[in-house]
């Protein structure tokens, strides 16, 4: 039988233990509440940042033009393009010696990723070996494929397609069509999203040293350029071209659709040049 003093001590110890348990319990609950609060704050913050990021991705941010390189990065890109094209005659959408015996018609869509792959991987060697040497001239023609992939309404797709193709053609009036086209393909984004807005296209134009932006803007409204884009589309439809890029090689010995419209290798192109020369 415990003495009265011992009983008091036991009761005191029990009370202290109870108080400690209650304090620990309170602290745990408080911690869980803070934990939940931290998660809620984080979720809200992430949603806000993603919304801001998405609005930038759609091409309508404040200030900066999304996907358009700036500063040294833009200079480096333009420098590589300039190295490829420097010294080669240009007129409108034509690249190369105007009196070259062989003409390659390049049917493309500036939003087409396969055209991008062709333009950035195969085309540079072709330019170096066949165009720079005066054997072949290249004429770019418009054919809506990737831009008209059904992600937007037909009229919206047509508007975007005309806007981007005419923007490039307008640079051609200052003999800088190929600089513009190369820059477009290098900085191409997700097809069919309508990203080539006026500000995006202007941002691209501003990357070309020596291009008079004011003149370029005026030329963009030239109805002849739009008529040319429409005529190209009409021709591509009548010729039943299989897609983009479609490359038609024409020379003294005839005309051929390179590799039947499949993605060509450099040797396919070189063979086609030989066959029509």
């Amino acid at each position: 039988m415990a003495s009265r003093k011992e009983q008091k001590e036991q009761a005191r110890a029990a009370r202290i233990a109870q108080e400690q348990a209650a304090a620990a319990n309170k602290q745990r609950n408080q911690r869980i509440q803070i934990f939940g609060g931290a998660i809620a704050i984080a979720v809200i913050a992430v949603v806000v940042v993603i919304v801001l990021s998405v609005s930038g991705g759609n091409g309508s941010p404040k200030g900066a033009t999304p996907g358009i390189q700036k500063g040294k990065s833009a200079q480096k890109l333009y420098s590589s393009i300039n190295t490829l094209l420097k010294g080669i005659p240009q007129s409108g959408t034509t690249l190369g010696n105007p009196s070259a015996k062989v003409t390659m018609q390049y049917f493309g869509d500036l939003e087409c990723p396969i055209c991008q792959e062709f333009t950035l991987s195969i085309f540079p060697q072709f330019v170096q070996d066949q165009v720079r040497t005066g054997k072949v001239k290249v004429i770019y023609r418009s054919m809506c494929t990737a831009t008209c992939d059904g992600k937007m309404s037909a009229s919206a797709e047509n508007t975007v397609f005309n806007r981007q193709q005419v923007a490039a053609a307008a640079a051609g009036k200052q003999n800088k069509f190929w600089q513009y086209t190369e820059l477009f393909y290098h900085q191409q984004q997700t097809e069919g999203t309508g990203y080539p807005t006026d500000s995006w296209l202007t941002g691209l134009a501003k990357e070309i040293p020596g291009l008079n932006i004011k003149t370029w803007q005026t030329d963009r409204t030239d109805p002849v350029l739009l008529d040319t884009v429409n005529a190209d589309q009409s021709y591509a439809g009548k010729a039943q071209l299989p897609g983009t890029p479609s490359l038609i090689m024409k020379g003294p010995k005839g005309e051929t659709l390179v590799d039947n419209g499949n993605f060509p290798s450099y040797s396919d192109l070189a063979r086609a040049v030989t066959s029509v020369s």
Partner: protein
Amino acid sequence: MEGSAQQSAARSRARRDWLVIAIFAVTMIGFLDAAFLTYEHYNGLVGLPCVGASHGVSSCEQVQSSAWSKVDGVSVAVLGLIGYFGLWVSYWIAAKINGEIGRAMGFCIALIGFGFSGYLTFREIFTLHEICEWCVGSAVCMTVLAILTAIRFLRGEPAVS
């Protein structure tokens, strides 16, 4: 009995120490990664080593120059750097001012970093079809930190001194 309790306490301390050391180490790795990306961003991406490349342009350069490399005009590399700096501040608050608040702040920042870097990685894989190892590295750091700082907060370790 007493010896066993002391051993258990020592093991517990060691575990806590390793958790804090791991958090510091991963934060430092992520911080250096973000600092390098920020430097490269302002230096025109001219010296950014990258494994992948297509069309003669490195994957890192394509990701870093894409539409998703900026949030309202601010480079995501800069945002990452700010995030890691915030983590260091939270560790300092946990150690010097209020352990509970500091640890909660660290967890919150790491969770934001995890969420946003997860979104950016999604964009890399499914929109851009290009992978930037430096960005993925930072995303991995933030994922690990979100887990470690959550453990640290829920365990309620004492502030680092």
